[in-house]
Structure formats: structure tokens, C-alpha cells
């Protein structure tokens, strides 16, 4: 579920932070830049893990900022395909079930990836799995659910040329990182069932 990613970056420390020990200033700056943000094709960065190397600080002309080249590792949320994760059901629609983890909301279980015999109950707004034995099992809201990661989707949301923006208005709404999960094997589904 979590991985370590090694990055290098140029970190700028402003004069207001000069009273802080350099190491701490670097850690704060890196966390400000990366914590809780999606890095394209890498995953959701959680926080700094450790600093591996840093260069001497150089003051650029014109500003009093110190620039330091740093090599460091981040903890990143990036489940592999086929990994089994537990989460909570956020809501259900006729298209499928939205699942969230406390720190990550963009998980979707499409209806085609649910158990065979699952139907959507429009009155209750929940998915119901009718088993072969005739039992009815409910995917209730806020229930803990276990699912398998099937696909991941990264969307590059870097700003586009304003002249082109109108035609891309819909695409802008896409989350930068999204997971598609499945729930059709015994053992998956609501945790309390098994």
C-alpha cells in the first residue's frame, strides 16, 4: 500500500527561517511542498521519510534565499495492482460504489466489478448481493469493505493554455489520482460477512 520514493529537488529556504536549524528547515520545506499531494505517475505523497544528501546552500543574486539541492525519500501511497485494501463505503450510485480511506477518497468499485447477482436497491440507495443460497447481503454506507485494486488512473492537471481551456473544461474536473477496485471473490466485500 505504501512505498518509498527517492526524489531530488532544489529547496529554497527564506531568510525568515534562518533561525531554525537547517535540517529542520529542509524537512518543513519538503513537507510543505509534498505532503498530501499527488505526484504524477508516482502516487499520493504522505510525508518525508528521510533526507539522504544535501548540497551546500547557495545564495542567489537578487534575493536572500538559500538554495539547496536535496536528495530525499518520501512515503507514498501507491497500492499495487491486485493488492487487497479495506476502506469505508462513502456512498452508492447505480453505477457502483464509492469507497474512501480516511486520507484518500478517490476509489470506485464499478458495478461490473461487484459480485455476480448484485443489484442496486433504488429505495435504500444501496447495493445488495443476492447470493446463490438466496441470502441478501447489503453494502451499507460506512460499512468496512475489502476490495482488490484493479486499475489506477493518473490525470495530469497542469494548467493549460487559457485559449484551449474551454474545450477542456470537463477534463479539468478529474481527480489527479484515482483507483478502480473490484469485489467479486469470496473473502472480499463487507468485512463482517466473512
Amino acid at each position, binding site marked *: 500500500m505504501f512505498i518509498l520514493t*527517492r526524489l531530488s529537488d532544489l529547496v529554497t529556504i527564506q531568510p525568515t527561517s534562518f533561525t531554525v536549524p537547517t535540517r529542520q528547515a529542509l524537512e518543513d520545506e519538503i513537507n*510543505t511542498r509534498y505532503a498530501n499531494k499527488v505526484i504524477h*505517475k508516482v502516487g499520493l505523497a*504522505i*510525508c518525508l521519510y528521510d533526507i539522504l544528501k544535501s548540497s551546500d546552500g547557495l545564495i542567489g543574486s537578487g534575493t536572500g534565499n538559500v538554495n539547496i539541492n536535496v536528495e530525499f*525519500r518520501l512515503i507514498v501511497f501507491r497500492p499495487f495492482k491486485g493488492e487487497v485494501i479495506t476502506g469505508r463505503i462513502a456512498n452508492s450510485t447505480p453505477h457502483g460504489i464509492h469507497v474512501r480511506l480516511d486520507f484518500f477518497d478517490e476509489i470506485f468499485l464499478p458495478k461490473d466489478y461487484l459480485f455476480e447477482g448484485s443489484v442496486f436497491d433504488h429505495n435504500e440507495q444501496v447495493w445488495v448481493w443476492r447470493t446463490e443460497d438466496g441470502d441478501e447481503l447489503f453494502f451499507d454506507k460506512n460499512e468496512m469493505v475489502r476490495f482488490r485494486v484493479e486499475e489506477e488512473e493518473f490525470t495530469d492537471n497542469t494548467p493549460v493554455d487559457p485559449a484551449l481551456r474551454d474545450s477542456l473544461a470537463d477534463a479539468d474536473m478529474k481527480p489527479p489520482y484515482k483507483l478502480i477496485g473490484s469485489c467479486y471473490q469470496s*473473502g472480499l466485500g463487507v468485512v463482517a460477512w466473512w
Partner: protein
Amino acid sequence: MKVLEPCEAMLSNYEVLAHIQEVKQKYRDQVANQGPAAAMKPGNLETVMKEIIDYLSTTAATSQTPEATMKLVEDLAKSPLQFEKIEVLMMLNHLPKNETELDVLIEELESRLSEEQIAEVLSIIQSASQPTGDCDISEG
């Protein structure tokens, strides 16, 4: 920004939880030593650390200890069952309690393992999830 190595290592839920609790402790110490001004941490960091702790405290990671975790990994690696690294990782994160839960994590469980082997793996995991001192692992 340059990505040097997208996936250098995989971390178990327990390791992530331990790291974040360590960072939190370090910040608390800073406040004690340097006064409340040192507590000004980036907001996005505070948010994600709280959410990660909230999430991981609903998983098996809260009850794990470094010793029990190491022992479980060694026991599973020692067994002649040839688990993949990611399978060991998932077993560590989920601590499956019965055969159905194990079946989800291990591909083609029934053709790879006999019933006795499945029971053995489950008992290894069971003994690791209850770190109450010395407990016997029944072989076979």
C-alpha cells in the same frame, strides 16, 4: 523536482504508522524545548498525518510490535511455501484470521498449499497477532 527511483522499497502499514508517530513525538519534543513557535508545522502535513493515523488505527497495524513483525516475516520466509514478497506484505498488513481471508491474499491458494499447510500459515499469523509472550506454534 526529479524522480530518481519511483519505488525504492515497499513499506508495511506498521512501518508507516511507526514513522508518523515518531515524527509526531519529535514535534512534541520541539515544542517542549523551543516553545510553541516550533509547533507551526505545515497544515497539509498535520492533516495527512492525522488521517493516516485514523485509518491505520482501524487496521492490524496498531497491535503490532517490531519484534512480532520481524518474527512473522522470518517465519513466513522460512516456510517452504515460497510466498512472494507482496504476499508476505499483505499477510502482514491484514493478519488473516481464516481460510477465506487468506485465500483473497494468496493467488491460487488451494492448488499451492495443502490443508495442513494453510492451517500452519494461519497459526503462524495467529501467534504473531497476539504478542503475549511465549506461545507455541504447532507444526503441521
